[in-house]
């Protein structure tokens, strides 16, 4: 039996720093942990801005022997639906230039097993839990939140309005501002936890969707889910995936995601969580610079399961090396980029 890589243990409260203390590069190492990374997402106060993206970290326990999930800002579960889903047939993954296409089809254990087995396990690991939920209709989502809304230890919900890989209730269906607004208005009273709407990138105006979500009562947005993509096998003359198209993720989409995220940030007053191609602390700092409140690490965890911890460490080092004691002093520093130009 091997010894697992032990997560570094951190004393609770270590991230609370004396405010506005300038730190010089010479004290970088010891001061990195004293930087204030606190992050507010609606009613949620997170210790830091690094979350793991839905569908790339299972139900939070699969990577727990290599990542101290309690040290992350939060863990977003695989999207859960009312009933278990078996997912799409084989041909679910294809690598593309600096990215990957997936067509998983929301395979998940379903509400019951999530509640009875997965959430308690994740709770016991001390993680801040955001449950991702998905539905084919507004009514599905209402039922999911009725069931999970008061679940102990669930700090918030990310509503997956943006899956590109399902026939019913996917990104296309939800890319309708009034549908989003009305659905969120129904969900709002069902939980006191954070209500986060996850948006698709392949839309005419992500700003319109973002505004509708804010009006409907969302506490925050996630921008963005995967981009619809297609890759062909020219020898077999078919798609490299079982279903023709899939969702593109990974470094290839970072500039695209950053632009969509920026557009959403500028459109609304609620926090926006960035997702798309984040592999390093510097990637995260770009999203935070344009005004994202927090970031999600997705595909990077498949390549290095410890990627989320690394991103967190690198954010601290980045700030420490510039003598910035609070993430708030960085967040949004480039929010107004391009403002006033056509």
């Amino acid at each position, binding site marked *: 039996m091997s*010894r697992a890589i032990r997560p570094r243990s951190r004393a609770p409260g270590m991230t609370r720093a004396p405010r506005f203390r300038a730190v010089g590069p010479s004290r970088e190492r010891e001061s990195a942990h004293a930087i204030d990374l606190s992050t507010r997402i609606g009613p949620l106060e997170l210790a830091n801005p690094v979350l793991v993206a839905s569908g790339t970290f299972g*139900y939070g326990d699969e990577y727990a022997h290599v990542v101290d999930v309690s040290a992350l800002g939060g863990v977003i579960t695989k999207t859960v639906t009312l009933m278990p889903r078996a997912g799409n047939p084989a041909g679910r993954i294809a690598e593309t230039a600096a990215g*990957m296409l997936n067509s*998983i089809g929301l395979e998940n254990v379903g509400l019951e097993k999530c509640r009875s087995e997965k959430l308690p396990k994740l709770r016991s690991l001390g993680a801040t839990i955001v449950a991702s939920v998905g539905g084919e209709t507004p009514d599905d989502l209402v039922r999911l939140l009725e069931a999970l809304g008061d679940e102990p230890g669930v700090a918030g919900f990310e509503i997956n309005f943006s899956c590109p890989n399902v026939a019913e209730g996917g990104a296309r269906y939800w890319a309708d501002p009034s549908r989003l607004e009305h659905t969120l208005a129904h969900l709002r009273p069902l939980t006191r936890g954070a209500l986060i709407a996850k948006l698709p990138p392949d839309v005419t105006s992500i700003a319109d969707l973002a505004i509708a979500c804010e009006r409907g009562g969302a506490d925050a947005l996630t921008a963005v889910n995967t981009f619809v993509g297609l890759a062909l096998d020219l020898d077999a003359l078919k798609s490299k995936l079982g279903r023709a198209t899939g969702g593109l993720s990974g470094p290839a989409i970072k500039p695209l995601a950053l632009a969509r995220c920026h557009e959403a940030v500028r459109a609304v007053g609620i926090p926006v969580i960035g997702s798309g191609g984040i592999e390093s602390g510097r990637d995260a700092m770009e999203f935070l610079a344009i005004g994202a409140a927090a970031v999600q690490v997705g*595909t990077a965890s*498949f390549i*290095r399961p410890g990627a989320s911890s690394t991103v967190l460490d690198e954010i601290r080092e980045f700030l420490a090396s510039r003598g910035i004691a609070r993430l708030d002093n960085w967040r949004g520093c480039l929010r107004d980029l391009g403002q006033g130009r056509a």
Partner: protein
Amino acid sequence: MSRAEQGNGGAKAGAGVNGNAKSVAPLRVSTRTVPRTRWIQAPAIVRRHEDEGAAHRWLELEAPGSFATPLPGQFIQILLASPSAVLLPRPMSVASARRRGGRCVMGFLYAPVGPGTRLLAACEPGSSVEVLGPLGRGFPLDQPGIPVLIACWRGVAPLIFAARSLAHPSARRRGRRAEFLFGARDRAHLVGLEKARREIAAVQGRLQLATDDGSRGIRGNVIDLLERLAPRLAGTPVLHACGPHAMLKAVAGWALSRGVRAHLAMESVMACGTGVCRGCPLPRSRAKSEAFDSASTPSLWGNREYAMCCTEGPVFEARDLDWERVE
């Protein structure tokens, strides 16, 4: 194939009767007693890297002592040093594993077929990669019966590892010699044949060859070898096979129609290799699907309809998969 199932994606759980299960032994939830180890990701150094003939390469990697020793049939994910032109790690079956000075030295036989494996082929001894593993469940070598190891092409490598394990005096059923069947299109494709001869002889195994064109061994394939061998065995065979899916399908079909146990090392395109991304589904047989018990099956392994190749596999029992739908 004994069990035809309805087409893609729609096999309904719990529906219908289990038609012609005929001679197949009754299904229990799990007969597998493969020890489970915890994977880690660790840096590794290329120690040897050379041509093995038949367009294959032999690679030896040295991982730190914290890396658990893989078992035959298990695989690891090899991640090239970054920056790299490929994003995801590449799964490779372990072809040998030993401890050296407390460190874990693993061998791999692979073919450079695409961008990832071609970049791997260019890694000089002394260079670094990262390894994640050991992953998956290997061959259940403690199953009773006369072990018959069936390899096509590069599938030979993990099975030589299995033959050595079977013969090892510390193995649970102690020092069993294996029947070894090895096939390929022609003699040039019998990759690592000389090594196979040596290693199988060293563990008192018996090697028989088949080529489609008869340039080595019998003219025919491994199923023909199996047909000849089976009646001469002193007991019930238990099959372990590794090779292209078409060959594994044929072995599975042969075994299912005779009620013989067969364990097949499957492949799938993979992303994570650890059950997280859900990218590597293999269709379950109707019987397995009907007997599926979500309480006793780790969700990491799959669901009622699909098993994940990387966690429940890559080695599967013939009766557990729907071979009509395996690509």
